[in-house]
């Protein structure tokens, strides 16, 4: 996190990041972080620190803010898989899966954007994402990053779901969550994990952990 230490990373977020140490985000060391925009979530984040259930960290944000954050996550994932699909690293079944994941993530983003429109809420501008320089160094490197990214999406949806107010939006979020879990399984298959379905209970992540995990890519909301 060399490039990030000199910046105004919120203390609560930083502590959450260190404490959980759930993701190997140190690998994204050269990525830039901007604290702009984090403040809106920070209030709920601090409120939630004393709590235990991850969903508490999303409560009070409102469906629109949660969806706006989810939209950026989907755009990030879709862009990541698009890079992978175009990298020339994958062929055959692996390429078919990477391209499918790309399409899923963008389909999720489109569905979320549509819902935001229905809510009368703004669709966030997609930032210029920053990816680690070695992400496409090899198929193994790319899949390694994919294996750390997918649990973030899973954890975000699973964590946020109980905080959603609209039952219709909840139903959509649960479906997308299930798709993300299938993505992770597919990545584990490509990584040679056997059996790939090696989790009995998926893990929800607190908002701060998700924010810290995706901040190095350029998501600052």
């Amino acid at each position: 996190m060399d490039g990030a230490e000199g910046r105004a990373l919120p203390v609560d977020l930083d502590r959450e990041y260190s404490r959980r140490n759930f993701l190997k985000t140190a690998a994204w060391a050269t990525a830039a972080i901007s604290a702009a925009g984090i403040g809106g979530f920070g209030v709920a984040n601090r409120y939630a620190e004393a709590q235990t259930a991850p969903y508490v960290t999303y409560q009070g944000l409102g469906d629109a803010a949660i969806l706006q954050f989810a939209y950026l996550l989907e755009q990030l994932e879709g862009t990541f898989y698009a890079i992978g699909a175009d990298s020339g690293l994958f062929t055959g079944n692996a390429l078919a899966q990477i391209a499918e994941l790309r399409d899923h993530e963008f389909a999720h983003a489109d569905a979320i954007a549509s819902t935001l429109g229905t809510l009368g809420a703004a669709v966030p501008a997609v930032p210029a994402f920053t990816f680690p320089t070695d992400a496409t160094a090899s198929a193994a490197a790319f899949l390694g990053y994919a294996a750390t990214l997918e649990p973030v999406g899973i954890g975000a949806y699973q964590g946020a779901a109980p905080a959603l107010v609209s039952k219709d939006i909840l139903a959509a979020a649960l479906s997308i969550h299930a798709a993300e879990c299938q993505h992770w399984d597919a990545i584990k298959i490509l990584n040679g994990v056997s059996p790939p379905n090696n989790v009995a209970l998926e893990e929800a992540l607190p908002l701060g952990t998700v924010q810290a995990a995706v901040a190095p890519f350029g998501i600052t909301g």
Partner: protein
Amino acid sequence: MRREAEKPEVGALARPRTRREIMKLAALGLGAAAGTSLFAKKASAQTTGVVSDLDILNFLLPNEIFESQVFYPAALDAGILSGAAYDVVAQIQEIEVVHAAALADAIVSLGGTPVEAPEFMVPEAVLASQQAFLEAALVQEQKDVGANLGLGPMIQSPDILAAAGAINGAEAENVTAIKNLLGVVPPANEPFPAALTQDEVLAILAPYMGMGSMMETGGPAPAGGVGDKRY
């Protein structure tokens, strides 16, 4: 009023055995589980918004018991699985044990009593070969995901919903793991996994409750319309 007239006796609710009993349960929209009246309440829930979390959990529990204690053990004991297929199925069986325990714990935490599961069996045809079983297992795992997606939005307690999400994610992974074994390319191929109605869930379970095949619980019909069409 017809629903009242056709309500099966309590004994049949506890352990439906005959096709007629199952048909009655399904026609009423009652769970395969003993005493569950989830779907019957769903009709009123559309206006009142009230469906008990306990009912939902007790609808889901017998399904996990079926898979963890009957369906997957039968395949593991049948000698039809080998290699990665055996490993994946063994893993699923262990996962479903965890899920059944989690649901039972959740029921107790809400002050309820875990329902007793009806008697299940596995038709011989399902155990005829690895391929046959994996195809059947895919249907079951997709049913699990569909059930959770259908019921999830009806859950009132955020803690119960959080637990349901943790469970459903694993079921979703099971789907992809089985698709991979079946040679589906790519194995993760659903951008929006579909929800199922309780009737659809029951229809998938019916062949494992002593019925030779799926009868007339409403059949595979578009989500949301099955129970309503019958009356």
